[in-house]
């Protein structure tokens, strides 16, 4: 825990009241946002589709937005691959701290990781949007 700074000095603020009040401002901001969303909900509610009919599959069935990318991918790769790939990806991401163990020496590492994340996110968002429009 060498990088933990436990001394109280100019580089830090006390948890209470300074940091707590900072966080409270963020919480209040998001509460206001939530209440605005609620207010919109009074006039334009979420609503429901047709009641569920197990006998009748609608034409354009799609999963929720966070699965759309995967769903679109599944149209082009085999079903088994499409099920195993996310599990493999999640496993790699979960165990990433054991794959990349080298301590960062400069902010170059941040740049490389940011580029990697950007590429990954662009692909993910593109697949999601594609899944939504098709």
């Amino acid at each position: 825990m060498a990088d933990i700074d436990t001394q109280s000095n100019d580089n830090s603020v006390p948890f209470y009241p300074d940091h707590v009040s900072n966080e409270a401002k963020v919480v209040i901001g998001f509460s206001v946002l939530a209440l605005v969303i609620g207010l919109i909900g009074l006039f334009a509610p979420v609503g429901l589709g047709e009641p569920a009919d197990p006998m009748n599959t609608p034409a354009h069935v799609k999963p929720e937005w966070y699965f759309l990318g995967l769903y679109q991918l599944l149209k082009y790769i085999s079903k088994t691959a499409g099920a195993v790939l996310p599990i493999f990806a999640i496993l790699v991401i979960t165990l990433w701290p054991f794959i990349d163990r080298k301590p960062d020496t400069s902010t170059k590492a941040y740049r490389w990781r940011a580029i990697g994340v950007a590429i990954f996110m662009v692909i993910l968002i593109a697949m999601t949007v594609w899944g939504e429009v098709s």
Partner: protein
Amino acid sequence: MKIQFRRSYLFAILGVILATFVIFFGTIGQSQAGSTPAENRPEDETAIDWTQSKAIFSENTHIILPSKYTAANLPPPEQDPCLHCHITGEDKGLWTPLVRWIFFGGAGLLFAFGIYRSSSVWVNRAPWKPITTRTADWFDSRYEISEPLSKFLSKPVPKFATRWWYCLGGITAFLFVVQGITGIMLAFYYKPTPEAAYSSIQFIETQVNFGSATRMIHHWSSNGMILMCTAHMIRVFIMGAYKKPREFNWISGMLLLLLTLGFGLTGYLLPWDQRAYWATTVATEIGAAIPIVGDLILVFARVGWDIAAETLTRFYALHILILPLVTVASMGAHFLMVRRQGVAKPL
């Protein structure tokens, strides 16, 4: 170091709790599905035995008559007997409730002012400590919590950790709390059976006070929570805050992401409309495509081979019991680790 917390914080907290109670009980805490007084009126009034002096439960109405009514002293027949004393309903007058609101409301305001006034140092008497200090001392003399609490509260937070991208995790936790509160409000009215689910949500959106607002917040906060969780994860990844000694914290964070997606998956089925039903069918089919354990996953998720009432019940139980418990436990571990190890120092 003695705890000091400001009086204005105390009043703010009390005001928020009071406002929450008022809003909650005034809106979500009551259903709008009651019948009007006209429906309570009996078909044939002569059939009621008004001569009973005890409280009776008439079979023609579901009004309980207070025991003060006797044959000689009947309530006005055109009006619901309850309305003779109470304010609710359509046949209310103006003056009685107005006088009551003014009198009791004024007394209430006077009482509130008295609390505020007596919590400050009283001018004409021997001064005493502020109520916040006295409360803190009351607890401290019994629990001796002052020392560990001040140690907890005075923990230094490094200034770099006040940048905006360090807030993303806390925002995710806050959205979880929002989901919990709006979820409880929705759970008060939702019926988890295929026959009733759809109409219970229609009921929430049309009949429950602020039901549509609560549902809208719940719907959009779920999306927001997934976005914030991902954003937090990206921030931690880019800044390499998963490296030693924080590997296990990263793993607990991944678990939290998967639990959040699980909340989304289980919650999406609950409206039981076409989109919910078939989106869940597709999602569980993807699970079924996993080799070896695919069918097992499918049957466990769907409680059978098809999506039916049992599936809805299982998804509801997962959504309101199991996933919240596991998530709270994982969040506890996650926060404890951050607290113990501190925020990772950037380069």
